[in-house]
């Protein structure tokens, strides 16, 4: 039949016309990336054994690093590691060559920069300290591993205080509260209020631990409000 092909063509365009558009409206919508998508090349200095296999594997001389000898050991230590991403063609050869999975691709594909030198990524591992690993062997570990984590400690301390304060307030704690209000009576009112209301209790406890000045103001406001509602209730 003449025109059969034309009708078939119209059918095809109609079918595609009612289908959902394939467009992904980047950057509002993000594309779905497969697990092994090769985005930016990343380097994790913790695993690096400074074997140099990656630089040998790279066809474009993207990778380079500096080393320094370790005293009393045949090993070398890494001073800096450079990925000059502008020459990288994402061929995966370095990732395959690396024996410790130090090099890997991440899903970040927005690699453009305003300046040419910004695309060059330099990794400098933190200074290492030699420690005795036992049996006369020297081992290098990062300096910050030796030093206790002060921030984490402070946070733990704060949490402990907060928990203690919460328990104290839930059991009454008039003596604690007396510091933040003017009279004993007020303290009693506040203690009752806080025992009843868990949200206010938590807020008060956090304020007492973090900011004593503010805690005072809030405590007085709580008392004033509570008095007012009590008075209002009596009038009714």
């Amino acid at each position, binding site marked *: 039949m003449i025109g059969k092909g034309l009708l078939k063509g119209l059918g095809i*365009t109609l079918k595609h*016309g009612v289908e959902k558009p394939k*467009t992904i409206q980047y950057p509002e919508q993000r594309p779905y990336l497969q697990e092994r998508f090769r985005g930016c090349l990343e380097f994790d200095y913790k695993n690096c054994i400074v074997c140099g296999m990656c630089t040998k594997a790279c066809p474009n001389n993207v990778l380079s690093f500096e080393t320094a000898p370790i005293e009393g050991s045949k090993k070398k230590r890494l001073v800096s590691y450079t990925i000059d991403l502008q020459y990288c063609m994402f061929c995966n050869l370095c990732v395959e060559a690396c024996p410790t999975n130090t090099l890997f691709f991440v899903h970040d594909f927005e690699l453009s920069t305003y300046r040419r030198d910004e695309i060059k990524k330099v990794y400098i591992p933190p200074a290492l300290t030699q420690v005795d690993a036992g049996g006369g062997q020297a081992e290098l570990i990062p300096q910050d591993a030796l030093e206790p984590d002060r921030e984490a400690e402070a946070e733990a301390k704060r949490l402990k205080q907060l928990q203690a304060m919460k328990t104290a307030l839930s059991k009454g704690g008039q003596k604690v509260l007396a510091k933040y209000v003017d009279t004993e009576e007020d303290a009693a009112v506040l203690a009752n209020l806080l025992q009843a209301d868990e949200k206010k209790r938590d807020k008060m406890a956090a304020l007492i631990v973090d900011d004593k000045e503010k805690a005072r103001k809030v405590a007085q406001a709580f008392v004033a409000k509570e008095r007012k509602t009590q008075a209002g209730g009596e009038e009714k």
Partner: protein
Amino acid sequence: MEHLFTNIAQILTSWMVSLGLPPIWADLILLIGQWTIIVVIVTLNVIVLVWLERKISGFIQERLGPNRLGPFGAFQTIADAMKLLTKEDIIPSQADRWIFMTAPMLFIVIAVMLYAVLPLGQGMEVVDLNVGLFYFISLGSLSTICLLMAGWGSNNKWSLLGAMRSVAQMISYEIPLAFSLLGVVMLAGSLNLSEIVTAQNRYWFILLQPVAFLTYFIAATAELNRGPFDMPEAEQELTAGAYTEYTGMRWALFFLAEYTNLVAVSALAATLFFGGGQGPWLPSWLWIIIKTYLIMLVFMWMKWTFPRIRMDHLMSFSWKVLIPVSLANILITGLGIEFFRGMGW
């Protein structure tokens, strides 16, 4: 609702007469009013059509089409129109200035004049002309002259060649276009468009004249320079043929006229083959809008489906296929009419 616009017109006329105007003046003012409204609506409609065309092409190619400006990208065409209006108006120094400048204006004027006889609802034609269809076809063929003017006025040999190609194509397809309409005229026994609509009270002419509709539709596509017959413009291959030297608003006028022609030709198809404003429940003026838009959607659907055909194929298709078919259609229609008349119907 059916007589909404005709009632408004009557009320306006009687109001003007009551103010002491002679009736002929009142009619004239009303005519100018109707005319202005049609021109404004047709021009604004182009904005919708361009948006629709881009959306449809997007959907067919599984894209989104315009979607940034306004809801569903509806304001994109307005921004485009603004851009075209504010562009520099370049007239080539060697161009034939007057012909170059009048060609687009004449083109749009002719395109808008087509609407004078179209019944946009029951009793809603601007002029109830007894040779309405003849007027429509003759005006339609005038637009070839504008294309030739544009090509000649540009004083550019490629523009002129493009114009010649367009003119060859349009004149070739004018013949099957007119012939295919003759069958309808023979059935209705009138060239008056509103009478043709009334003649379709029992059957739409698409049922009696399917071949005529097909030839009309194909010839109209070629007349409109739309895909798959968009050889004269051929965006991807030629630099817009006769329009090469035009920029900004002058170029936009050609564009505007082509879409205006699209609406006119679709409205004529709705009038001649699909019973015009006839239809249940809805008022006649709404029916004709719905039918016109459906036909235009088919035009767009075709444009974004079929590849452009070659120039010699295009010409031989007109002369070797469409003209014989439409002539045979006239013959069979005539024989059929005589046969049924002899049967005493």
